[in-house]
């Protein structure tokens, strides 16, 4: 509806020393995400800050690099995202696009990046198709995906007895992928899917869909949506007494900012899977402290941490290759080097473009257990890296032979 101004800004981050005579390798990184809509708290300016921070910490000048950072709003629309990406690649000399929440937009950017032989590092998008049918030698899927969410949350719930499921699904690429991957996990573990309803994206009133879920008699209502949609669904489920009447909610994708928006009264007890939480260790806490100081006290989500980690590894690879020109060559170098950074620790990137690390199963604390704002999660289980993501052979990625 409202066409907001697109190109938000151009900020030269490291206009670099250039003291020596050696020519600097120029790199331009573009953060493309939701700057104004329902995903802008969990991605948005926080991701721009994280990318900038990663560049600063890397010290480009010492590695002979000159790095510039730009960002833009894709408004969660594939056409808007594609036209920004095209402008960036063709005119503005952007070498790498990072973040891109909203799976439909990410899939569009994925194709364009392959055509132009650039690099796409997705932190915000969820669909496991990015490393499956749509996998590309120019793309790395960094933080999480629908398969890993389904595998973490779906399995944990079926194992504790939630066998019949009803899905409330956001009607676009992401919701469909999350529903598909979770259904597979539910059925593989002996559960069954009794029904599903697809709501327009974004939505605001979910009571009608909740009532349909209630009528289905399923034990578990799986929410295959995200951000503000999930927040409103959970809130309205509380209002309609869904949980009191014996059904349980499974929020398949939940972010720290969503829990903050809901408040612990409503969110307590929800179980879900994430790739990163700020209060897991000292390194994460230090990052969160800096992040909060720069972002009105908000704490970083796993998407923000993923952007930091992805940009760090990308710059290492560029320093190794010596040029950002050939995107496929840069991604090949990224896959060869093991990943290691202060937020995600050691890991690797698979042949299909999947970044591999541990995932975590969290439970939201009750209000009396929380020390204050942003202290929200209790760690229930760590899913080891080897089991956290879809096995290479099952993804149908043409790059895997």
């Amino acid at each position, binding site marked *: 509806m409202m066409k907001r101004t697109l190109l938000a800004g151009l900020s030269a981050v490291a206009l670099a020393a250039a003291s020596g005579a050696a020519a600097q390798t120029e790199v331009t990184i573009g953060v493309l995400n939701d700057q104004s809509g329902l995903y802008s708290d969990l991605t948005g300016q926080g991701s721009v800050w994280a990318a900038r921070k990663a560049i600063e910490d890397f010290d480009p000048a010492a590695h002979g690099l000159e790095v510039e950072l730009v960002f833009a709003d894709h408004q969660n629309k594939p056409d808007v995202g594609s036209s920004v990406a095209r402008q960036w690649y063709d005119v503005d000399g952007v070498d790498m696009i990072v973040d891109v929440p909203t799976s439909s937009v990410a899939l569009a950017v994925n194709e364009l990046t392959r055509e132009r032989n650039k690099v796409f590092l997705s932190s915000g998008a969820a669909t496991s198709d990015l490393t499956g049918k749509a996998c590309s030698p120019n793309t790395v899927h960094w933080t999480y995906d629908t398969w890993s969410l389904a595998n973490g949350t779906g399995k944990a719930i079926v194992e504790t007895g939630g066998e019949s499921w009803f899905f409330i699904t956001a009607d676009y690429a992401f919701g469909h992928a999350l529903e598909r991957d979770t259904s597979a996990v539910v059925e593989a573990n002996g559960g069954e899917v009794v029904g599903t309803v*697809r709501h327009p994206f974004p939505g605001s009133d979910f009571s*009608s869909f909740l009532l349909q879920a209630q009528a289905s008699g399923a034990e578990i209502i799986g929410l295959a949506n995200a951000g503000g949609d999930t927040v409103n669904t959970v809130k309205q489920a509380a209002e309609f007494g869904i949980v009191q009447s014996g059904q349980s909610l499974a929020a398949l994708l939940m972010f720290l900012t*969503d829990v903050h928006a809901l408040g612990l009264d409503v969110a307590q007890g929800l179980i879900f899977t994430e790739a990163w939480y700020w209060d897991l260790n000292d390194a994460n806490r230090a990052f969160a402290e800096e992040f909060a100081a720069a972002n009105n006290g908000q704490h970083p989500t796993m998407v923000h941490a993923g952007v930091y980690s992805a940009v760090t590894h990308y710059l290492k690879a560029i320093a190794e290759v010596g040029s950002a020109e050939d995107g496929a060559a840069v991604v090949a170098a990224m896959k060869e080097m093991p990943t290691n950074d202060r937020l995600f620790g050691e890991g690797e990137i698979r042949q299909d473009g999947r970044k591999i690390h541990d995932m975590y199963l969290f439970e939201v604390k009750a209000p009396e257990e929380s020390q204050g704002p942003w202290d929200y999660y209790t760690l229930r289980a760590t899913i080891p890296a080897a089991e956290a993501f879809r096995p290479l052979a099952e993804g149908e990625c043409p790059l895997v032979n």
Partner: protein
Amino acid sequence: MLELIGVSPQMLFGQLMLGLINGAFYAVLSLGLAVIFGLLNVINFTHGAQYMMGAFVAYILLVVFGVPYWGALVLAPVIVGAVGIVIERTMLRRLYHLDHLYGLLLTFGLALIIEGLFRARYGVSGQPYPNPLPGGTNLGFMFLPTYRGWVVVASLVVCFGTWLVIERTKLGSYLRAATERPDLVQAFGINVPLMITLTYGFGVALAGFAGVLAAPIYQVSPLMGANLIIVVFAVVVIGGMGSILGAIVTGYALGIVEGLTKVFYPEASNTVIFVVMAIVLLLKPAGLFGTAK
């Protein structure tokens, strides 16, 4: 009979009820728009932002000043209405002699500014607002939360009250006369500019009132108005621009149509209203309750 179309009666009644509840919001919001358009000839695009402000004022009253829901239900519309009056006095007033389009552009711009300010301050995820009437009643075919029942009652009272004032009282007759022949009404010694200012303030206050009603149901978020305003405009167009009764009846009716769509073909539930709008405009360009001038 109902089983033939694959829906149980419980389900159908439940969805009709939910449609009625959503229709209650459409009715209050489109009523405000219809009052403003009918009496001022201004297409108030700020309406969605003013609805959002109503919810935020209620939230701020609660968090900062400790004013509970029932206090906010009175105070927030007054505050939002007062902001509306300032806008009318300082800006909108200067555009009355120009084409509708200028008023539309001004109010649209204001909506973007107001939403941007709230977004910068509060982010988009929204703030939680506690439900003042928790619990509910089992109606047999569905569980009706007490608060949703209250929303329908409050909306019916406000809508009917407004219709009564405008169509059946002396004050209402002045207002209607002033829209037809402001010069003549002025000549009878009635302060027409003041009346117009207060009318705009009242229309805006209705938006604020709907915002307070919405606060405990939806997240109090800067985006809440933008999501709703286009639908509400469609409601006003279907009902007939400026028709008070049309706005009210169409608001409830379209809530129900939307509710039914969510059962039979949920994917289309956010477009069905525009399909209805297109059909109505083809068959009756002035809207269901409008009269062609």
